[in-house]
């Protein structure tokens, strides 16, 4: 059992949870994730380790409730506990000296990006952060990211915060500006966003790393359910990733495989109490 020490709401249905997990806190490196199994007979849900405090023995998770299992997790109150958390899993981010990097986060992906951006900055890279969301309430962690970024640029679809438009518009401006052009881009967010970023940087030959989020089960390479296509190879994202070269990823396949259980998920959503269902549908659109 893993005790919940803190549980804040950052944006609609987005929670930051601090959880006691000393071994994971100690072993964890940026880019890694855990698998959370909230209840007996339940699903195993991968979640990025947003932050960790090895001294205190805690990890921080940023969780967007989008369905039955994530809802169950975020509804664990402070003082309550989560049944199973395994990790840290996946490869750690390869932190290199890139000089200037752009870190691009979309929606909840910003939370997944956070530990990575922090690690890049801490190892001496100059980090420009671009975060995007539907509208102002969905922009998360801007302050936290500002603490180590040279600049935090915001794009919202409705223009309610920062520039109106998409993160790719902002990134294009950076690339066009010789003083700001990044030598590497890290993009994490919805698959269409990551694809758009990769397409944008491809002609410039700017190294682009994305973090893939296929459906996972064990997270240890045992089931092959998380397979993604990168270049000509099939990879298991949980052990070979989750970060990959965005210019080689088959995003179409990833998106398609993510929809594999849409019918069941919709049915499960139907069975939730109406107010919870409505909240989730709003986030999902």
């Amino acid at each position, binding site marked *: 059992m893993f005790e919940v020490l803190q549980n804040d709401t950052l944006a609609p249905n987005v929670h930051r949870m601090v959880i006691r997990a000393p071994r994971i806190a100690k*072993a964890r490196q940026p880019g890694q994730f855990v698998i959370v199994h909230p209840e007996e*007979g339940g699903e195993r849900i991968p979640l990025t380790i947003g932050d960790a405090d090895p001294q205190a023995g805690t990890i921080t998770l940023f969780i967007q409730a989008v369905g039955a299992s994530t809802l169950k997790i975020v509804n664990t109150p402070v003082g309550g506990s989560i049944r199973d958390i*395994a*990790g*840290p899993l996946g490869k750690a981010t390869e932190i290199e000296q890139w000089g200037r990097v752009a870190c691009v986060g979309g929606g909840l992906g910003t939370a997944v990006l956070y530990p990575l951006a922090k690690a890049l900055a801490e190892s001496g890279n100059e980090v420009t952060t671009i975060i995007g969301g539907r509208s102002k309430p969905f922009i998360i962690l801007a302050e936290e990211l500002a603490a180590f970024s040279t600049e935090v640029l915001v794009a919202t679809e409705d223009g309610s915060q920062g520039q109106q438009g998409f993160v790719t518009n902002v990134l294009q401006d950076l690339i066009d500006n010789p003083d700001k052009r990044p030598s590497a881009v890290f993009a994490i967010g919805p698959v269409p966003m990551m694809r758009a970023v990769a397409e944008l940087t491809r002609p410039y030959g700017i190294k682009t790393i994305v973090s893939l989020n296929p459906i996972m089960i064990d997270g240890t*390479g045992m*089931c092959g359910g998380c397979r993604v296509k990168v270049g000509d190879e099939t990879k298991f994202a949980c052990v070979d990733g989750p970060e990959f070269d965005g210019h080689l990823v088959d995003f179409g396949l990833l998106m*398609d*495989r993510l929809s594999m259980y849409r019918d069941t998920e919709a049915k499960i959503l139907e069975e939730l109490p109406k107010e919870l269902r409505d909240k989730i549908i709003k986030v999902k659109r």
Partner: protein
Amino acid sequence: MKRQMTPKERMAIDRVKMPEQDPQRRIGNFEEVNQGLNEEQAIREAQRCLLCKNRPCVAGCPVRVRIPEFIAALAEGDLPEAARILLADNTLPAVCGRVCPQESQCEKVCVRGNKGAPVAIGYLERFVADWALAHPEKLHKESQPTPTGKKVAIVGSGPAGLTMAGELARKGHGVTLFEALHDTGGVLRYGIPEFRLPKRIVDIEVKRLKDLGVNIECNVVVGKTLTLDELREEFDAVFIGNGAGLPIMLNIDGENLKGVYSANEYLTRVNLMAAWRNDVPTPIIHGKHVAVIGGGNTAMDAVRTSRRLGAEQSIIVYRRTEAEMPARIEEIHHAKEEGIEFILLAAPVKILGDENGWVKGLLCQRMELGEPDASGRRRPVPIEGETFTLDVDVVVNAIGTRANPLLTATAPDLKLNKWGNIETDEHGATNLPGVFAGGDIVRGGATVILAMGDGKSSAQAIDAYLSQKN
């Protein structure tokens, strides 16, 4: 004292038939197919045993269960004594009695099989084991060992790790079992379905270990959460029993379509994550027409599972003939009763998809048997130009597994063979002092009883190692 039966009287008894759930009924549920013998049936079957002096059956059992001895006690109706003998030799008899390939082990060499049917050793083992589970108060009390103060870490809670844990705890060592998944049992939990091995049996066996003082920690992925080096520092010895959990992919076109599963994923969803129940959020694709590729126990489990999930048509596609199938004969027989179709001498070439990325067919190549290969089995070779397509909406790949490199990749000093399995001597010792290994991670995909045998023999080696280590 009862009169001893004569051999002739014993020979006159026919082999018992295992009461089974009716096939039509059982394809609609996940309850156990074999219902178990009742006491009368068990005693009568036990009386068939000739109590052979040379005990060929014992030599046929990888852990040398004293078969005639426990059967003799059973024939006398002395169940506590039968249980005592059985449990002393086999830590998980309720499991082995259900899943051992008896026909190629103990029962294969049973003298009664020379003329007619062998003694149903597996059924009897199961009967005695189930009785023991139901009557813990009637069992001979185990004496509490004196603690040795030595600590051993075990990686993996499959049959190898569970056996090791029991053996070492009984010798008084402090045992901690680390398991990567959220529950114990390894393949017994996530692979073998409820209808063949009810999970309550695994639960009881695990509880027994806990009662012996074994400390069980799930959600610890050794190599990630803790490294082998860390375990070696904290514990006096380490046993690695992490299994062979890496699916071998088909590497054919269409493998990434929606509706294509590895057997590991398919069975894990259904068993470990309980997708067979309808009160859980775990999704699974309920195919109407399902093809399972392979001929082993895993393939049989997957194909029979698909039937229970509502498939109208469930097909085994295997590239050799039934004679070469590695699955237990009983599973093949049960599968057939359940209406599973067998397409033999056929190999998958390509998985066909529809415009939305879902499986819609499996293109197969007809095969014939050619020359024997290294394993002595005749190698299947394609018959030029003969292909056919199956209309299916789910494909499960059950062609096999290999060693999962997750742990070993973080322990570069540990010696592996060219397939990535850990190399050991005959006692399970690896090249690293104090590190032992056994089960599928050493043997490649093998059997429950061989994994248990490894756990048992390595436990002695570890015990010896600990006693000479100051």
